[in-house]
């Protein structure tokens, strides 16, 4: 393998890996505050891309993206308020089925609104053929946009959770919901906010990836499964580990193309998910004694 080819695979791996990490962080935010896995997480990514494409016909690109992210956040909040807020300690099986139902609903509504056609946002800079030369290989500037945006999201989120009072309240909520309530934190609002936040970052990821991976009504499921794989790989609930796990999965996937046919790419990442679930269900970076105390 030449250096150029190696760099090519590496950049492809990092691009996809960091996108998976963003989706995984979306899973983690909701999991931390509610203890449920939102199976509709991938649909937020799809919605973000689709809404931005629609708004882009009317507004310039940055405005369209901001509007799309805000709309998706509102949708996320609405979903939480309509379907989840008033349920009194529902069972895990019930929540799985409800969120799967929500994801079907969003996907089918998207099919009726936007149709089956494959769409894409325009490239943020240049076009399909413009390229930047790094490490002896040509990559699209959009790849840098994806990596940059996702890194900014990760940094902003960690600052938000560490240094703002809202972020601290959310962390308190995830550590112990009852204790958080006793401290005067409105846990119900925190849960709504966690849905908004995770819908928002999902939508932003959907926007930046749209020019490269395209957006289609059923594109969310694949992202959700990869994102979940990454969340498990890093250890459920741990956002920083999700970034490392995301990059790992992305790079494994990218290099797997050089060994097995492209058609089996998804099968490989899901096999990794299964193997991790079987041998290390608490993730590569998680601790088994902590995981045992959690309710999956």
């Amino acid at each position: 393998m030449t250096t150029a080819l190696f760099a090519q695979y590496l950049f492809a791996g990092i691009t996809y890996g960091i996108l998976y990490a963003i989706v995984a962080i979306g899973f983690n935010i909701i999991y931390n505050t509610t203890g449920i896995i939102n199976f509709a997480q991938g649909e937020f990514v799809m919605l973000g891309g689709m809404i931005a494409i629609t708004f882009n016909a009317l507004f310039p690109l940055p405005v369209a993206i901001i509007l799309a992210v805000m709309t998706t956040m509102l949708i996320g909040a609405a979903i939480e308020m309509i379907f989840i807020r008033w349920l009194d300690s529902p069972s895990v099986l019930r929540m799985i089925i409800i969120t799967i139902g929500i994801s079907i609903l969003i996907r089918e509504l998207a099919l009726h609104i936007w149709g089956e056609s494959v769409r894409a946002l325009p490239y943020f800079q240049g076009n399909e053929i413009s390229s930047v030369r790094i490490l002896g290989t040509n990559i699209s500037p959009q790849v840098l946009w994806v990596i940059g945006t996702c890194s900014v999201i990760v940094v902003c989120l960690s600052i938000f959770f560490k240094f703002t009072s809202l972020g601290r309240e959310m962390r308190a909520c995830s550590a112990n919901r009852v204790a958080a309530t006793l401290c005067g934190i409105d846990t119900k609002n925190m849960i709504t906010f966690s849905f908004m936040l995770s819908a928002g970052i999902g939508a932003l990821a959907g926007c930046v990836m749209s020019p490269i991976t395209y957006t289609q009504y059923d594109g969310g499921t694949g992202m959700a499964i990869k994102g979940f794989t990454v969340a498990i790989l890093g250890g459920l609930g741990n956002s920083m580990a999700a970034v490392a796990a995301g990059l790992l999965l992305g790079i494994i996937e990218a290099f797997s193309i050089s060994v097995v046919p492209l058609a089996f790419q998804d099968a490989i990442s899901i096999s990794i998910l299964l193997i991790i679930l079987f041998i290390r269900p608490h993730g590569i970076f998680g601790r088994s004694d902590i995981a045992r105390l959690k309710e999956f």
Partner: protein
Amino acid sequence: MSTKNIFHLAALAALVILVQMGTAWTETGYYLTQLTMIAYYSLLIIGLCMLMGYAGQISLGHAGFFGIGGYISAALTSHNFAPYQSNPFVNFLISNGLLVGRTDLYGETLLSFHPWPACIIAISFTFITAFIIGIPVLKLKGHYLAMATLGFGIIIYRVVLATEAFGEADGLSEVPGFELLPGLVVSGDFDARIENYYIAWGFVLLGIVLLLNLTNSRVGRALRAIHGSEEAAQAMGVNTARYKLYIFVLSAVFAALAGVFLTHYNGGVGPSETGIMKSVRYVAIVSIGGMANIWGPLIMGVILNFMSLRGLLGSYDDVVFGVILILVMLFAPHGILRLNVWSRLRLFFFPTPAKSSPLKENQ
């Protein structure tokens, strides 16, 4: 088996006969085609109901098992082995009567597996797969179990979609009929519609008898204990891992059998049969029907599949399933047939509950 169950079974058998007579009388025999397909889907659904309702384990990968059964049987019975006649293994199969010749539309002789050995291979393969997958998967709970089974389903879907022997995106077609006994063929043949209807529902009745017997046995009690609380069951000396595996494999075999027969009935199978949406749909039907009872999912399965197969839902097919799924899980998590409408209404109009109700709950 209790008299109540025998009564239910007799009622179902009578209904099956009545529906057939009804369609013959009103000359709407074309409904039998969908009703036959529904019967095979019902076979899968009652199997999944055992896993979800009695043992309390979710599986989002049952379309995968359905696909394994259907695809292996279809590939073995439709693939032409004639070019490999010189191969000693193929020769061995021919001399044992496992491969049979038949002529295709263009008068050429094809050499492929007889449906019986193909079916046995498909079921054995499903059995082994379910066994191997089941051991690690069933150690998982909740979200992890759901995702692991979903992942299994996707792998099967991807493999089918990428394998040339399985027809890739086109699927397999021109699958011959399945001759169960001489003169009794499972196929989409127009003249054999009534026979096929009875064969299919006969399988469903057999399946129900088997499962009902199972639920009233030691195994059934063990499974219900696991559903109630796995830890408590374990403390009482129930080998939870083994029973969960048994029921997982059993429901997988039911799914594969449904796949085999439906494939021979339809004369083909496509990748969408193994897709995630199919698995979700089966889970939806079981949860809508109320899990811990075979009859609820069976009835809901017949109604929903009938609407879906007749195209009554149009392009809103999946939306309807999604909406029903959410509504049922929000308002009636034990299934709509278990929604005690009368007592709810009574409670609504007369807020003080009737005196006998707490006693009834205990019984």
